[in-house]
């Protein structure tokens, strides 16, 4: 390509005509008057439309009185933002140092091969977007792959097909999913005593044992230590929908925190994950909310 051709291509590319005017006024309104709210605004637009349309960037630049070049610079700086529509399912392969040496690149390549895309691209049918990140903070479990917020640990090339199929069939994070689970080992956030109970395995792994109290009754509740599995066992029958107190069986302190469950507003229980991070679960019996926060 000669310099003249490059110039021509660069300067006379017609503006993107496909973008409709998107209504970002509401989002701008929400963050109005906040200092440095630009990233928050962009994050909201990203989560609402799945990407940052050009027209939205222009409106943000005008409304927040920042040069478009700045807004564009920020939008291209953070991996969380994308300027092109993302697919229905977002696959994130960790290529941090630990995952890299444990075979992350091979997994990324295999996913790319099966989907026919490279990292950063979206499949033609708009179903999958493949991205790579540098460390998700779960290095001991590497190679880690996250599909739509569901963590897969120790991924091998052989598991890729199953994972993609789970995503296609909408089985991510459900018990039928073949490849959705992540083994965790938890401890009490107050006394740091391990809560793992090897004597009562669930799903062929040591279970997580906590004391639960509801009304006058107390008993042990055992949860599966596969994050993603809802299987649990309890000595006494806890009525469904019942709010329960979670206690550490060793230090007898309450495990219930102040955060509320996004589904049912019951308080969330926090358990420490060995190796860093925390798992949150809803204290309402039967509510499926489980959240894994890795640092």
């Amino acid at each position: 390509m000669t310099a003249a051709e490059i110039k021509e291509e660069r300067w006379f590319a017609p503006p993107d005509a496909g973008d409709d005017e998107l209504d970002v006024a509401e989002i701008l309104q929400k963050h109005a008057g906040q200092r440095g709210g630009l990233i928050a605004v962009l994050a909201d637009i990203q989560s609402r439309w799945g990407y940052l349309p050009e027209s939205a960037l222009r409106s943000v630049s005008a409304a927040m009185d920042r040069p478009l070049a700045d807004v564009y610079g920020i939008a291209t700086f953070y991996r969380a933002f994308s300027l092109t529509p993302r697919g229905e399912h977002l696959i994130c392969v960790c290529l941090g140092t630990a995952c890299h040496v444990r075979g992350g690149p091979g997994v990324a390549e295999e996913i790319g091969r099966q989907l026919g895309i490279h990292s950063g691209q979206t499949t033609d049918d708009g179903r999958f977007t493949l991205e790579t990140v540098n460390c998700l903070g779960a290095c001991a479990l590497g190679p880690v792959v996250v599909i739509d917020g569901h963590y897969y640990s120790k991924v091998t090339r052989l598991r890729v097909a199953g994972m993609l199929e789970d995503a296609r069939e909408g089985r991510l994070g459900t018990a039928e999913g073949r490849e959705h689970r992540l083994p965790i080992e938890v401890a009490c956030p107050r006394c740091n005593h391990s809560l793992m109970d090897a004597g009562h395995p669930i799903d062929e792994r040591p279970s997580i044992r906590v004391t639960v109290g509801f009304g006058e009754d107390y008993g042990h509740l055992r949860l599966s230590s596969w994050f993603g599995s809802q299987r649990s066992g309890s000595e006494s029958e806890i009525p469904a929908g019942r709010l329960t107190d979670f206690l550490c069986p060793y230090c007898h302190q309450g495990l219930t925190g102040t955060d509320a469950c996004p589904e049912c507003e019951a308080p969330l229980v926090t358990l420490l994950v060995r190796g860093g991070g925390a798992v949150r679960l809803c204290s309402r019996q039967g509510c499926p909310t489980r959240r894994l926060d890795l640092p």
Partner: protein
Amino acid sequence: MSRWKEWIGMINLAINGFAVTVEDGSTLLEAAQFLGFPIPTLCHLEGLSPYGACRLCVVQIGQGDRARLVSSCTYPAQEGLRVWTASNRVLRARRMVLELLLGSCPQSKTIQDLASAHGVRQQRFRQEQEDCILCGRCVRMCREQMVAGAIAFRGRGATRSIGTPFDRNSEQCRLCGGCLYVCPACELRCTYTDAPERAVCGGCANLAPPCAEQEGFDHMMCYMNPCVACEIPTPEPQPGVPS
């Protein structure tokens, strides 16, 4: 210390062993240059905010074990500071910075001249033939002096670049040429061909603008249309497309 110095906001420090008094609020670079101690700079430009990108202006502060290198263009002068602008450590660091800059932009005459002036006699790094060293001069020029904000940094890491949003002709650009004027990389190029050792000769006077070389520079740092520096014929504006 006499009282009047405090009154008018002066501070005392030692530069290269000389006790000096400079205005409070100045940077080490300003202090040293005002007093005549030379410090080479690349990303710094009077009239633009300090940026600290090139690290060419390193100086040594502190003593003994606590001595460290800082970029003088961003470091504020402090009472009692001991500054060395040309210690062995500083000179070594500077030569390394220049060698690295030369590796990324071996044809820039500015960098070549700086390199030869500071005794860089070799080039050990793979030459990248970049057309931008990401010094940010153009960005600050455009924003602070032209109040246009047409160009900015984009992306990050190895793919960081300077340019207009969406790589399109910017509506904010005033076509002033300020960005080209201040760029240390987008200017006259050395015409040496490939030998790395010739990258530091610093002796030629080539007058061809970089974009005249058709190969090798695929993203010219030129936001002007038509460009003031280069003679590439610009394409006819197409109907319906704002140019």
